[in-house]
């Protein structure tokens, strides 16, 4: 086994660490604490946050990559260990090989037979054309009629295990948090459901394809789960990448005004006047060429896909910084008129210190709101970009690629609906949770809305 740290892995873990540090530091700041408290004092906040955490958790597990060592070939004595060129993640291990159970081609959810006929030979050796049985579904059944009772029985056992696991996990939390006033029970409810579902899924998927299989015979459930990492990472890393540009330029423009302001305004007006999709498309193509010209940079395919992914994050970030920059510029303009910045001037505090201590901390809420708001928008944008053909590398699982591939499936007779359904629900749950959560965060942090509340 050889751990692999892809660039995106590194970035996401960096981001997680940074966020942890950030929140740890913010613990001291009572105002921020109060606002977060407000977010988490609602049941909705707890539920959505838990859902997001589950997704992030899956994404993180899927970001722990390694390459399996190959067995030493027989009759050859070498010191060197060689590795599989396929990259496996901890999530793959936890799913107990869900991604390795390939069928020939399409099969419906919980189906026992393939969705497409095949030329076969029956026992007498006559050529027949029929639906071949699946290799990894219902093999243990003697009679196809036993399928649903079997599913029910297995589900029940799995659920029992799930409940047990959930009880343990939630019990531990209860011990730690029982004195908290926040509605943790809401979070526990979600956790229980998620844990049960997960246990059920892993269990059942060993005997059936829960969401069927796709054209190439890959389990759709597995693909949907693999899409989680792409979605979550794209949503977070893009913003992460654009933050430094947007914040630096925005703050500088708003604080120094004058020609700095003119230049920054020129930059973002220019950038935002280009139709976004064209800019993104051109940039993605550009990076594709770079990859093509430097194939030696990437020893395995995954790294290449990852590089393209990072590039996409980067491009989405670079093309979208203007909005945040504008907001921050406006806020900085406002802040620099406020008493405390004036007072700091009167105290002869240096520019860098004023920026660092007075301006930056007070635009953090805008960054935060943008971060949560953009998250869902970016997840949705990915699907559209993949449709246009400038999205995620096709070898990397993503909901956008699934939808894109599923377009023609809908026109089949009978319809292949499960790929689309899988992508839809996984995407919808994440985006919905993120949207609801971002509403709460905005309500808590946006001075306008909080003002309204205090008036009431």
């Amino acid at each position, binding site marked *: 086994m050889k751990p692999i740290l892809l660039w995106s892995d590194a970035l996401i873990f960096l981001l997680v660490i940074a966020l942890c540090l950030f929140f740890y530091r913010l613990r001291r700041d009572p105002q921020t604490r109060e606002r977060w408290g407000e977010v988490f004092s609602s049941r909705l906040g707890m539920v959505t946050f838990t859902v997001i955490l589950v997704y992030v958790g899956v994404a993180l597990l899927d970001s722990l990559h390694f390459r399996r060592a190959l067995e030493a070939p027989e009759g050859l004595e070498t010191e060197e260990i060689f590795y599989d060129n396929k990259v496996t993640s901890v999530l793959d291990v936890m799913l107990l090989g869900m991604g390795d159970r390939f069928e020939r081609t399409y099969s419906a959810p919980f189906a026992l037979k393939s969705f497409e006929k095949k030329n076969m030979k029956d026992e007498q050796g006559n050529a027949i054309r029929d639906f071949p049985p699946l290799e990894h579904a219902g093999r243990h059944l003697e009679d196809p009629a036993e399928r649903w009772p079997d599913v029910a029985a297995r589900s029940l056992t799995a659920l029992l295990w799930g409940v047990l696991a959930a009880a343990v996990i939630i019990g531990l939390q209860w011990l730690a948090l029982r004195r908290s006033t926040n509605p943790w029970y809401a979070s526990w409810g979600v956790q229980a459901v998620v844990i049960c579902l997960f246990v059920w899924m892993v269990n059942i998927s060993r005997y059936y394809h829960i969401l069927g299989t796709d054209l190439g015979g890959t389990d759709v459930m597995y693909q949907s789960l693999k899409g989680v990492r792409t979605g979550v990472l794209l949503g977070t890393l893009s913003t992460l990448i654009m933050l430094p540009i947007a914040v630096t330029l925005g703050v500088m423009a708003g604080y120094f005004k004058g020609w700095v302001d003119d230049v920054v305004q*020129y930059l973002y*007006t*220019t*950038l*935002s*006047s*280009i*139709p976004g*999709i*064209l*800019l993104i*498309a*051109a*940039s993605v*193509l*550009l990076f*594709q*060429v770079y990859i093509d010209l430097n194939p030696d940079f990437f020893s395995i395919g995954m790294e290449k896909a990852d590089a393209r992914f990072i590039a996409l994050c980067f491009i989405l970030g670079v093309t979208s910084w203007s909005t945040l920059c504008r907001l921050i510029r406006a806020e900085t303009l406002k802040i620099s008129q406020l008493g405390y910045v004036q007072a700091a001037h009167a105290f002869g505090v240096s520019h860098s210190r004023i920026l660092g201590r007075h301006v930056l901390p007070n635009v953090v809420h805008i960054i935060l709101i943008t971060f949560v708001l953009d998250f*869902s928008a970016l997840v*949705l944008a990915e*699907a*559209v970009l993949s*449709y*246009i*053909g*400038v999205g995620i590398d096709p070898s990397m699982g993503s909901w956008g690629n699934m*939808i894109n591939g599923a*377009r023609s499936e*809908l026109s089949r007779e009978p319809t292949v609906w499960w790929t*689309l359904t899988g992508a*839809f629900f996984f*995407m*919808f749950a994440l*985006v*919905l949770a993120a*949207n*609801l959560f971002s*509403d709460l965060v905005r309500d808590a942090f946006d001075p*306008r809305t909080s003002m*309204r509340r205090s*008036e*009431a």
Partner: protein
Amino acid sequence: MFAYIVRRMLYAIPILIGVNLLTFTLFFVVNSPDDMAVSQLGEKYVTPEAIATWKKKNGYDKPLFVNAGAEGSEVLTDTIFFSKSLKLFAFDFGRSESGRDITTDVATRMWPSLAVALPNFAIGIWVNICVALMVVMFHATRLDRWAVFVFVSLMSISYLFYIIGGQFLVAKTWKLVPISGFNIEAQPWKFLILPVLVGVVAGIGSGARWYRTLFLEEANQDYVRTARAKGASEISILFKHILPNALIPILTGVVVLIPSLFMGSLLIESFFGIPGLGSYMLDAIKSQDFAIVRSMVFIGSILYIIGLILTDISYTWADPRVRLN
């Protein structure tokens, strides 16, 4: 005001130059003129001579930005960048790499785009405002909370699903309208129903939610309390006081988009087979037709800038407090 508009237009020039510079750089890092020649000439029997001819014919036989071999100002002017951009400023878009006159194409494709985008836009705003007003009327009840939840759910669904779902249900299963296309001879409006419906429904979530926020913001203003104290009814307050005031932020958010309606919608047009500028752009991206991309970027930027100017003008119209200077 006239001076203001003139000034804004002058300000647009450096922006457009910047836009051009950026598109050029991006595109030519991706594609050399040789690549363009190859992809336009096809895959069989492409000789270097053919490539050279194509480049000469289409004006790509010069250096990109700096012509080191030229004299005087021609160092900068005898380049692809200068010759191609200068024409853009004269609204001469030239010909696409495949030889079509872009201006003609844009002029003809503009109308189908508009035919979809305009009703989509107008009906969308109207529906969103209606829905938002209704929700505001019941605000702070359980109904309001559910409505917000529904809005958020609606906006959490990818646009692609609306289109795919709409086509699948309305056109394929119910057979109410043609599934795609746009035919001026065959009752063009019936082709527009579905794209407009899809566009409007897909926009309700975010639109109505945003308008609701704006209305609520206005509903908390002092003058609303004054109106209440006058004895005005809830509905009359909503329509006579809140709506006109909320129109100001709505306008400014929306007016900037109006010129861009000409550009059409990338997704709707390509899914519904509407021969507008959106699908034109998508095709150009896919076939890497730089002349079209460049022209569309240019047009898009101009329309955006016009949108900004219109926004400012609409401010003065909607809000008596604002005057341009």
